[in-house]
């Protein structure tokens, strides 16, 4: 089984299994640095109560990240964000970046008759408006 937590397909979000969505939320927080490496992540029961979902579903979501070695279990105290987890998640997401963001953008550009050069200009303009890279 290979449930990639970053593999959300926007078109089918409602149909994404809940446990995958839980894994994605946690992964988002790790990538954003909200959950820093070495900090404890919410317990299964805390997640269940917060998202109002079945605790078994929350546990399944956490397990996805444990299998990917993004989270590690420390006996008796709970789940923690593993060292190097953030970079690992970022690397996986970079790989998927083209498929998730660029391909749909190119398809829409083609549909609207925006050629490659215009597109590059648009991206440059947008990037400078938004202050570019913040990471």
């Amino acid at each position, binding site marked *: 089984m290979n449930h990639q937590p970053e593999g959300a397909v926007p078109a*089918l979000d*409602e*149909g994404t*299994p*809940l446990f995958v969505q839980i894994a994605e939320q946690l992964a988002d927080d790790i990538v954003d640095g909200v959950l820093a490496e070495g900090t404890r992540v919410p317990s299964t029961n805390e997640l269940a*109560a917060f998202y109002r979902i*079945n*605790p078994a579903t929350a546990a399944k979501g956490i397990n996805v990240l444990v299998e990917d070695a993004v989270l590690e279990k420390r006996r008796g105290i709970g789940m923690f964000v593993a060292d190097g987890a953030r970079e690992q998640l970022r690397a996986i997401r970079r790989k998927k970046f083209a498929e998730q963001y660029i391909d749909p953008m190119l398809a829409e550009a083609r549909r609207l008759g925006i050629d490659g050069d215009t597109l590059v200009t648009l991206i440059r303009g947008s990037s400078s408006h938004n202050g570019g890279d913040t990471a």
Partner: protein
Amino acid sequence: MIPTISATGLGRRYRDEVALDNISFVIEPGSVTGLLGRNGAGKTTLMRIITGQEFPTSGEIRVFGEHPAENDPVLRRMIFVREEQNYPDLRVEAAIRVASWFYPNWNDELATQLLADFGLPRRRRIRKLSRGMRSAVGIVIGLAARAELTLFDEPYAGLDPAARQLFYDRLLTEISEYPRTVLLSTHLVDEVADLLEHIVMLDKGRVVLDAPADEVRGKAVTVSGQASVVEEFVAGRAIWHRQRLGGRAAVTVPGPFDDVALARARAMHLCLEPLSLQQLLVHASSKEQEKVSA
């Protein structure tokens, strides 16, 4: 591990009416299962058979590996909260006390807490309570019993949305802290969808769906977009429903869709919207006749 409930070829017939028709399924220990279906689908009959209040006319039911009927040790391990339950004319606190004698895992503190949460007047006679309050009494007993198998059959008659949310929240806390097997029959499907691990859907006395909740999400999808493109995309799939508006079409088809299909849908500018559990229920119970008319 012995399943909490197992039904094998279960049937229940009343004279010439078939309430349950050759039903087989298994409920694993510690799971929360939604028993879904329209009125008259056979949900209550099934729950009555599980709790030993009714006998099957064919097939077999096992609860904790045993026949439930007239089996006191098994019956004490389960609690059944019914819609519009009839209570003897007692005060609320007396009804709670009587229930506490029957269930070995009963927790008084929890009962007291829940009575306060639902704003139930302890001294009032049950007959004098509103419908919603009577439902709340059933919920308090159902949760405080902490029975290994807890069955709720549409337990919320007259409860407003806030009280129902309270029920769902307390149920969640309880199953987190004191895991037990829960079978919940409801027609407010979308309200409880996220609480369920497993779904058993009945229609006209038959099981039409028996699957983990995760698999049910995305089980069917409504594909919409330009009519000819939609038709090209759904070709070869069973059509559950088809709508047209000018050049646009919305067609509901069963999944699953792999990554290739999803990429293709994006490239074709199609919009894919998964059916909610509630919608799925509607389609699952009307599918047969649409197949004929399609």
